[in-house]
């Protein structure tokens, strides 16, 4: 008899989703101009969760004006008072974290294990961290009394909806800016719940405005003349379009874009932990992570051994209902994303790479993709160059450290990399040669509010997190 885990679903009853939501502007929920709406669905079941207002350019204008109005008083508050608002928000997020975790899992499709143990703790921690900076800006290394920029227009992706909101809003508010934030079209709900948290915290009206919508809404926001700062996380293609839009203006810009992270495993690596790190690197959040370790570079002398271990480990991954507490791999966020992953994976096969996936039953409803790895991949393959943003790992081999570095850097991107070796000097030397904004050694996909995050090259510019993350929101 085998040890079969019975279903262990997290209760949905902790979250109460309204049938419809308006835009959160100047402290009030309002309908979109013309009453336009769109539906948000649960990617694991295709169930419609709610109907959300589709913000137009006029709505964006209203929101920016509200933020502008609020800026005067907000930026004039003593830092210690702004800090206390942010501490309140952090505490309320902690209090409501189970509710928000379930909500995020429903709207995004990612496993409850991740929203509960990664997303939500990081969200609260991010607000705590930046709360503390609000009254310490003089100590941050930007000179005495650094000033905020004004109204920040922020556009965030669907892969970590609430965490990306925290990364954007916490430093903006701490430094005295006000914000208009546009959540992703497929994951608007947690941002709208955040609006309610702002209400509970007593945050002054207009300091945070949430305008839901699609790409056109985001485009209107970044183009708006009243916006002083644009912060975007998403695809490199859209990032380039935004860079063109703000060209010639006074808007300060930070971009956190795509990646094709190399996870380099040397022959002296702690193998069992490296296998875990590879899994964490590419299957965390179904691989829908800009800093995913999507290219495994393994030293040829241990390639067979490592791949055997990796395949054995992948066979134990549990794919299914994201609300089940034992689920490791949840749903892909949207039909569109699933189509993109499928197309790229098919190209891998067509170009001659060898495809492998563990035996894995996919649910009928919803958007699913089995954890997949490709061997015999070369730098010339599309699956080694293009960001797949899905649970697909491309395995390449190398012979020497110099070759590993050369291959790792052979990318338009430069966001993340991993190094697995027990030898400290090799780790440090390789790290110093990698053209990537975050390098993890003997670990992967670790995040902390105190640690700066961001990319080299076409992975964007500017840093979020840490002391460095303040700069994007200060007039320095």
């Amino acid at each position, binding site marked *: 008899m085998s040890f079969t*885990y019975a279903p262990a679903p997290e209760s949905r009853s902790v979250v109460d989703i309204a049938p419809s939501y308006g835009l959160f502007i100047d402290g009030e929920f309002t309908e979109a101009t013309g009453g336009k709406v769109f539906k948000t669905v649960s990617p694991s079941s295709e169930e419609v969760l709610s109907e959300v207002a589709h913000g137009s350019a006029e709505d964006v204008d209203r929101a920016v004006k509200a933020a502008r109005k609020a800026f005067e008083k907000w930026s004039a508050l003593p830092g210690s008072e702004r800090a206390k608002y942010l501490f309140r928000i952090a505490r309320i997020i902690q209090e409501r974290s189970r509710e928000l975790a379930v909500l995020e899992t429903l709207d995004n499709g990612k496993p409850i294990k991740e929203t509960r143990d990664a997303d939500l703790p990081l969200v609260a921690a991010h607000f705590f961290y930046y709360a503390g900076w609000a009254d310490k800006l003089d100590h941050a290394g930007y000179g005495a009394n650094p000033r905020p920029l004004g109204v920040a227009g922020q556009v965030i992706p669907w892969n970590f909806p609430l965490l990306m909101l925290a990364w954007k809003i916490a430093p903006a508010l701490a430094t005295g800016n006000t914000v208009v934030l546009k959540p992703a079209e497929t994951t608007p709900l947690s941002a709208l719940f955040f609006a309610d948290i702002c209400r509970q915290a007593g945050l002054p009206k207009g300091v945070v405005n949430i305008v839901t919508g699609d790409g056109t809404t985001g485009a209107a926001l970044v183009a708006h003349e009243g916006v002083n700062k644009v912060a975007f996380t998403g695809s490199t293609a859209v990032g380039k379009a935004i860079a063109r839009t703000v060209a010639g203006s006074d808007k300060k810009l930070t971009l956190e874009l795509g990646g094709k992270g190399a996870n380099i495993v040397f022959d002296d*690596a702690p*193998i069992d932990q490296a296998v875990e790190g590879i899994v964490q690197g590419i299957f965390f959040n179904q691989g829908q992570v800009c800093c995913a370790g999507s290219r495994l570079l393994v030293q040829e002398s241990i390639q067979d051994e490592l791949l055997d271990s990796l395949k054995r480990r992948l066979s134990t991954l549990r794919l299914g209902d994201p609300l089940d507490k034992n689920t490791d791999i949840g749903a892909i966020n949207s039909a569109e994303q699933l189509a993109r992953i499928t197309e790229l994976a098919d190209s891998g096969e067509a170009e001659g790479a060898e495809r492998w996936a563990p035996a894995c039953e996919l649910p009928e409803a919803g958007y699913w993709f089995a954890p997949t790895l490709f061997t015999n991949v070369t730098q010339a393959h599309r699956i080694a160059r293009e960001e797949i943003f899905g649970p697909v790992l491309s395995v390449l081999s190398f012979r020497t450290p110099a070759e590993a570095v050369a291959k790792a850097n052979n990318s338009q991107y430069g966001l993340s990399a991993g190094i697995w070796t027990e030898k400290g000097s090799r780790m440090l030397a390789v790290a110093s040669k990698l053209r990537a904004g975050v390098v993890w050694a003997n670990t992967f996909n670790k995040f902390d509010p105190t640690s700066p995050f961001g990319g080299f090259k076409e992975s964007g510019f500017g840093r979020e997190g840490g002391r460095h993350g303040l700069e994007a929101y200060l007039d320095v």
Partner: protein
Amino acid sequence: MPTTVPAHGNDAAGRLTELADVTASDSALRRFLHGLPGVDAVGLEARAASLGTRSIKTTAKAYAIDLAISMIDLTTLEGADTPGKVRALAAKAVNPDPTDRTSPRTAAVCVYPDMVATAKAALTGTDVKVASVATAFPAGRAALPVKLADTRDAIAAGADEIDMVIDRGAFLAGRYMDVFEEIRAVKAECGDKARLKVIFETGELSTYDNIRRASWIGMLAGADFIKTSTGKVAVNATPSNTLLMLEAVRDFRALTGVQVGVKPAGGIRTTKDAIKFLVLVNETVGEEWLDNHWFRFGASSLLNDLLMQRQKLSTGRYSGPDYVTVD
């Protein structure tokens, strides 16, 4: 992968001779052990903790509880042990829950050598094994002839299983060959009469790299089981050191085809803890180890907690300590 045989099977010794060059000399053994992949402590502990978040409910929990009960080496290792105490423990092993005869028996009772005869007599006619600690348990600070005599006595009195301790002093001094030879000598003493569990006292070995090396020494020397601890030091079985040892038996079987069991001992007191260990087994080595021939818990108070949880599942009410026996 070669077909699998147990470490006490006829073919096992032959399989191990294929690795004879590894144990041919002190320096060869040292090179081999230091050539094993390193263990990153943070990563190991994170993996163990992550498996600890598995939620085992309803039917899965009922299965796990019965499995855990059947894997217990019900243990008493006190200076104050008496025949009466040992007989009571044996009765509990055979019939853990007097109110519910469907409860599985424990795998064994585990006692000091001088209590083996008493235990054996009390367990006659049942399939519950008698395990005996030996080799100057728990410190192991005695001469080899004394340790062998200790082992011989226990087997002569009817022990089915011997739980020996390694010489941690020799290990920490780098005399790996001495540790290996001593295990081999005890194994020879066990012959085909008793299965041998080798206790590393992981809390004293202190580093994960050491635990991995000790695991390989034990397996190369013919251990039927590798076991974490005596239960007599500050740090005993933990999810992390047990996970590491499970990885070792997995890798050893992949290399040699010889299957070795694992026994975490000491500090496992609750059903919740026990289930976490079973999840480790399930997701590291799989169902081939989910049997009391291959996995054991060295424990005493754990049994009552398992029984109370078992009663809760069958009646829907939370039980209390007055509804399980104190033996």
